[in-house]
């Protein structure tokens, strides 16, 4: 493909790249204005090289230039020639403060480029923290009585790798087949797992109690594990091949991190609210009970309510093949919940599950204030949110 290069490419870009120490400028704080005008036609590296010879009229050393094209990720200046990247930037409605180089960097996974100056590991770490902070503060303030396990599951549903893969795909990001210098910087670059290849062990977790006879309780998960209750692998950054969902997750996190770095915390919060927290989830469907009847009686005992009694609200066809019983759970004279089932036992179980969910899913309102709102200038005085004493233990 002929490459129409209107700007003059000077040899300095190439000489800078030929330094053996592989020093490339870090893009994190570079501003867009300082860079050459964006005129693009094509982005194939080989043709670029041909044109360089033709336009500059100087003979580049073939051997040296080919030996230098082994960078594992596209160069920084390619970010300005990629229309895909610019379209992605505009599609996410990012501020102009977020430069295209940073955008390009968020798309390079550590498994593609192990150099920490050019991959998104640091950005993803930062963005992941910001995202999980906003998700968890919103969940905790909106549903203050969620059990810890359900809270983990809800956090996973909002910011887990599966969801972030969906988010990344809904942003229109595609994966590159293999990372390399010639790849368009608008593609997500990581080294893919081969079919049938097993996940590499990450070298154990950081938990101090690695022995199998230790009980991995919920409280220890809060302390030692990550925001979803999973163990954190010991090896922080690895350039091993990884599943696609993890690559997408680190990309989305890195975008949040870059928004935070360039536009500030308020913009990052808005971004997380718009793209992550606006997604649809029925939190009521995340519960899996084991012994709801006993749990409800323990709850009533703890809270000082009267002992819950199951009462038949209505029934039909008791002696038929398909009876239906509607059973309500009453504590004293107040109805806590009700459920319908084909047998009295199942109806009672359903009624207890219903009552327990009604307890756990108490919400002070959808627009409850979260602590990060206090960061805004001129925020109202903080009113304490409802804090629950925790789930029922029996």
């Amino acid at each position, binding site marked *: 493909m002929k490459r129409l290069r209107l700007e003059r490419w000077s040899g300095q870009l190439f000489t800078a790249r030929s330094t053996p120490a592989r020093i490339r400028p870090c893009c994190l704080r570079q501003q867009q204005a300082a860079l050459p005008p964006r005129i693009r036609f094509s982005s194939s590296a080989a043709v670029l090289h041909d044109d360089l010879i033709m336009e500059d009229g100087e003979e580049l050393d073939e051997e040296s230039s080919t030996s230098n094209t082994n960078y594992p990720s596209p160069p920084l200046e390619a970010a300005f020639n990629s229309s895909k990247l610019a379209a992605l930037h505009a599609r996410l409605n990012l501020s102009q403060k977020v430069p295209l180089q940073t955008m390009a960097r968020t798309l390079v996974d550590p498994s593609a480029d192990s150099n920490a100056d050019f991959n998104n590991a640091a950005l993803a770490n930062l963005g992941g923290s910001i995202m999980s902070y906003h998700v968890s503060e919103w969940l905790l303030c909106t549903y203050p009585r969620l059990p810890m396990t359900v809270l983990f599951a809800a956090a996973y549903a909002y910011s887990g790798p599966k969801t972030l893969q969906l988010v990344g795909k809904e942003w229109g990001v595609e994966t590159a087949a293999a990372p390399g210098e010639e790849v368009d910087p608008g593609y997500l670059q990581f080294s893919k797992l081969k079919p049938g290849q097993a996940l590499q062990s990450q070298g154990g977790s950081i938990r101090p109690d690695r022995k199998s006879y230790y009980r991995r309780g919920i409280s220890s998960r809060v302390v030692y594990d990550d925001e979803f209750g999973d163990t954190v692998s010991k090896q922080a950054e690895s350039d091993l091949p990884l599943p696609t969902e993890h690559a997408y997750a680190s990309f989305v996190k890195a975008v949040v991190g870059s928004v935070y770095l360039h536009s500030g915390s308020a913009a990052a919060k808005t971004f997380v609210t718009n793209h992550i927290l606006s997604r649809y989830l029925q939190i*009521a*469907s995340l*519960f*899996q*009970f*084991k012994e*709801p009847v006993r749990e409800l009686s323990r709850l009533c005992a703890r809270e000082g*309510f009267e002992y819950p*009694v*199951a*009462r*038949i*609200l209505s029934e039909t066809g008791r002696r038929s093949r398909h009876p239906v019983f*509607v*059973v*309500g759970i*009453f*504590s004293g*004279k*107040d*109805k*806590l*919940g*009700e*459920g*319908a*089932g*084909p*047998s*009295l036992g*199942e109806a*009672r*179980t*359903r009624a207890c*599950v*219903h*009552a327990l*969910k*009604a*307890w756990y*899913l*108490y*919400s*002070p309102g959808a627009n409850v204030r979260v602590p990060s709102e206090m960061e805004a200038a001129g925020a109202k005085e903080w009113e304490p949110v*409802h804090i629950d004493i925790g789930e029922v233990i029996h």
Partner: protein
Amino acid sequence: MDARLLRRPVIDLLSGRGQCLTSLNASSPRHQSSYRRTKQHLNIKPDSSFLISNESPKQDHIIFNPPSASPSVLHTPLKFLPKEDKRRQLLAATAEKLNPVPSRLPPPVSRKPKMPHHHLSDADIAEIQRLKRDEPEKWNNMKLSRKFNCSSMFISICLSQCGYDDTVTRKAEKARLDGVMDRWGPRRRMAHEDKLKRMEIALRDE
């Protein structure tokens, strides 16, 4: 607004579209096989709360027509609301009017008389354990619970510490039950499996 509320049922009656009133009793000779017939059939009389009567208020008002559906889990019962919640007062005010506390509660599911709680002394518990230790074959849980007037659950808790090794009994009991299940036919087996599945689903509330 008022006029419209009034107009629709009146027009329905006059235009002969009020067949919904009779359709419940009279068996329809035809199936509701067309869109128009279905729509016409579903064109039912509005709830009485929508109708204007002499008691209906003369000013702007809210018509409260609770859904005929099982309540949502997101509607926290009054009892579960925390003390500082603002909805407590509102719900308490409306609950009196809308759901007056019934003078007679519905019948409970299990009519069995409740066992008395916490009436056994340590000596009684030691006696239970001794009986089981001495004559394990004779004293099973049901007999013990009947003798001491307590729940069999309590008996099982007591006996878990009595020192009697019941693994053999358990195994034999399990083998007996498995033998019974092996004799089941396909219909009963399927019904049993379905029941287990339904309980699983009930625990997930799906």
